[in-house]
């Protein structure tokens, strides 16, 4: 029962109409998420992340395909799905005219909490998300980071076992981002909450999520742990620099044999290669070359980033993909009105 998936998407597809042309925002999305997982949905703007999330949270119906979320079908039992999940959207969850504590209490009532329970829960969240100094302020008066913490608090009011977050850290300063992540990680550790989030920040997915799904142009193109994605699709970049060009040339052959990889000579005195196991290769290479009388002056091993992974998968850097996505600024309108 523990291993019954908490999210089960089957062929989710969403088509929009932009300027009378059909655009497929999400194509045949199928995946499973197990209880307790922290999954990052990574991709450039316009890749289909938010649309996927909006389908899973019952905000928009899929054009085809379906999904079970927290044990309920998004098409036949949207109300049951809504009761079971928490959702933090891309924008501000709190109404600008409302006070922070009031919004939390209203949210509690929406989810059927008793008044006493809602009050207790609101105070807990105000405390743990450092909202106490602003509890009686209106949402309008909060800073970006404070608003975002309230968004998370609102998403957690009913202690859902599954929390969706759409770009939770976009627009925050580095410190607020780190704080927010700490809260998300804590939440998972203490309550075993399943967290499904979208991000276009590579560092975040890399650092916090143990499972990364890469989405590009509406399709999932990779789904694995960040570490596995990096070692399989991109390797550590190892650079050895020698005192002379002669040494570098002489070392190329032995290094190629040792690593079993192609070696390039850069700037005459440096050898560069990519390998999944750079940390192990470095000391071994330095020892062997030294024994052969080839003195290594500098040795560096740079681990790959998810940007390298994205490049390996798509042939484009994430930044390039972003720029293209931002060029097409047309707002999509759903094809056929949802009922």
């Amino acid at each position: 029962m523990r291993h019954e998936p908490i999210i089960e998407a089957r062929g989710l597809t969403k088509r929009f109409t932009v300027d009378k042309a059909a655009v497929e925002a999400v194509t045949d999305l199928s995946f499973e998420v197990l209880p307790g997982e922290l999954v990052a949905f990574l991709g450039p703007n316009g890749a289909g992340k938010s649309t996927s999330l909006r389908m899973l949270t019952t905000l928009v119906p899929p054009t085809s395909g379906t999904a079970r979320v927290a044990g309920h079908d998004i098409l036949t039992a949207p109300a049951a799905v809504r009761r079971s999940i928490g959702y933090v959207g891309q924008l501000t969850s709190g109404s600008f005219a409302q006070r922070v504590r009031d919004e939390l209490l209203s949210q509690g009532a929406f989810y059927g909490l008793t008044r006493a329970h809602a009050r207790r829960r609101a105070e807990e969240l105000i405390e743990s998300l450092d909202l106490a100094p602003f509890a009686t302020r209106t949402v309008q008066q909060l800073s970006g980071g404070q608003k975002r913490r309230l968004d998370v608090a609102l998403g957690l009011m009913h202690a859902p076992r599954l929390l969706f977050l759409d770009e939770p850290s976009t627009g925050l300063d580095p410190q607020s981002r780190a704080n927010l992540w700490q809260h998300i990680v804590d939440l998972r550790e203490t309550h075993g909450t399943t967290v499904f989030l979208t991000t276009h920040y590579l560092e975040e997915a890399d650092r916090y999520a143990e499972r990364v799904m890469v989405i590009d142009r509406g399709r999932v193109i990779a789904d694995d742990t960040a570490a596995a994605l990096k070692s399989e699709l991109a390797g550590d970049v190892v650079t050895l620099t020698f005192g002379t060009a002669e040494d570098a040339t002489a070392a190329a052959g032995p290094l190629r044999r040792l690593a079993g990889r192609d070696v390039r000579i850069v700037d005459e005195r440096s050898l560069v290669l990519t390998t999944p196991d750079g940390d192990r290769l470095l000391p071994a290479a330095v020892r062997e070359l030294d024994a052969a009388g080839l003195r290594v002056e500098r040795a560096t091993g740079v681990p790959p980033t998810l940007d390298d992974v994205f490049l390996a998968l798509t042939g484009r850097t994430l930044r390039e993909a972003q720029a293209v996505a931002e060029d097409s600024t047309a707002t999509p309108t759903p094809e056929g009105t949802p009922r």
Partner: protein
Amino acid sequence: MTTTEKSAAETAPTTGAPRGGVARDVWNVLTRELRPVVRDPFTLIFSLVQPLVFLGLFAPLLVGQSGEPTGETLRWFVPGVLVMIVLFGTGAVGSNLQYEMMTGSHERTLVAPLSRSSLLVGRALKEVAPIIVQALLIVAISIPFGFTPDPVGLVVGLTLLAVFSVGLGSLSYALALATKNREWLFWGVQQTLIFPLLILSGMLLPLDAGPSWMRAVATVNPVSWVVQAERALLAGDLGAGAVLWGWVSALVLAAGGLAVGIRAMRRSS
């Protein structure tokens, strides 16, 4: 199917009662909407500025024009001002929803386990509270100048005003839902409609002296019927035919407004 439903319910003990009913949802939406008003009642006075300007700057002109005593003119004019509060105040409430659609909190309520209809009905019913308070303020301000409302008529008149505000509020919310994030379109339509409705209701000046086509249009303007009903009620003429037509207009508007509004809310995403 049944086993997974059951296990989900067991593992999620805090998700509350599965069905509290639409009434509970409406109540929760209504109380949330009222919170900012209770926290900052000054906003009610602020939105009274326009009707107060008409009362302070337009009524004296009417008094001068008619040559009748102030009390007599107010008896004709104040009921119209009460309807004006609804027209200007409630007619614009859609912009609050539109703002929440653009800033994100509307989306949050769509993901919450609330029936779609309650999201509209709760908001529409909320309009009653500020309208009653504002109407009582206008009446209280007018009394020292010689306005003498009939007490029973006032109670019935306020109830009629409440029903009218639910209808107009619903339509305003429906307009916001239909125009989505195009604020200019919301205000364009709202302003285009509000002034013809105002003038063709005989609220500011009697239409008796107007051309016959204007009077013809006024007969199909529900606002005009509500204004006439309010005049009769506040004067104590509870049995007047205008009262019946006022109620019919307000009830039809409320039913139609709620239907259109709920439909728009169901399509909202």
